């Protein structure tokens, strides 16, 4: 007699808010209230420095979307609706706390960035999802980042060294190096 594994419905239920599809289940059980505000809010996130042949750009480490210096709209790649949606996981992500454990510096090619989220916002317990994202500044706080005049980036894909000046020239976003702003 052959052995067949149990169907997926026999999996134990996960805690609400842990899995991706549990957000829709949670929102159906607890409908969200909608309020209108005059201004958006700032949040913190990690970005990835992607090195091309002779220039650099930024990507979101969670969605792999390119981060521009200008306001950029989020788009849902799953259901193609307005992002973010309360029954989906799309949108620009950000954490309230700058010292959140999920934002600890791990790679020197993943600096911390403060963003300004506008449009439709969905507030979560520890973070927020937004429709429009505008980068405010990048904080080079990793120990591999040189705290002096010439910073060093050790990228994860091809290990090369770049200067902060070239980084600022390519991404066009203010950079905070050791508490000093560089434009």
């Amino acid at each position, binding site marked *: 007699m052959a052995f067949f594994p149990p169907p997926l419905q026999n999996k134990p239920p996960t805690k609400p808010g*842990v899995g991706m599809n549990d957000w829709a289940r949670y929102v159906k059980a607890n409908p969200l*209230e909608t309020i209108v*505000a005059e201004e958006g809010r700032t949040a913190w996130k990690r970005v990835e420095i992607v090195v091309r042949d002779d220039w650099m750009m930024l990507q979101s480490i*969670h969605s792999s979307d390119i981060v521009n210096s200008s306001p950029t709209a989020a788009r849902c790649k799953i259901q193609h609706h307005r992002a973010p949606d*309360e029954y989906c996981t799309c949108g620009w992500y950000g954490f309230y706390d700058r010292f959140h454990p999920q934002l600890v510096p791990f790679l020197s090619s993943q600096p911390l960035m403060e963003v300004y989220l506008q449009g439709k916002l969905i507030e979560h317990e*520890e973070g927020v999802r937004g429709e429009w994202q505008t980068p405010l500044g990048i904080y080079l706080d990793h120990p591999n980042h040189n705290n002096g005049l010439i910073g060093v980036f050790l990228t994860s894909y091809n290990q090369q060294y770049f200067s902060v000046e070239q980084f600022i020239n390519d991404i066009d976003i203010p950079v905070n190096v050791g508490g000093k702003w560089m434009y």
Partner: protein
Amino acid sequence: MAQIGVPKRIIETPQPIFIPSTVPIEWPESVPDPMVQPAEPVRTPELVPA
């Protein structure tokens, strides 16, 4: 996927304002403007049977 907890509420805030550039776009002389119609229609040379 970042774990940011369960959703709590929805906030509708105004969209970002895009200020258009006041510098007019200079169209080079060598390239004809497609929005301006030519004064005379361009006539193709007639085919003469040999």
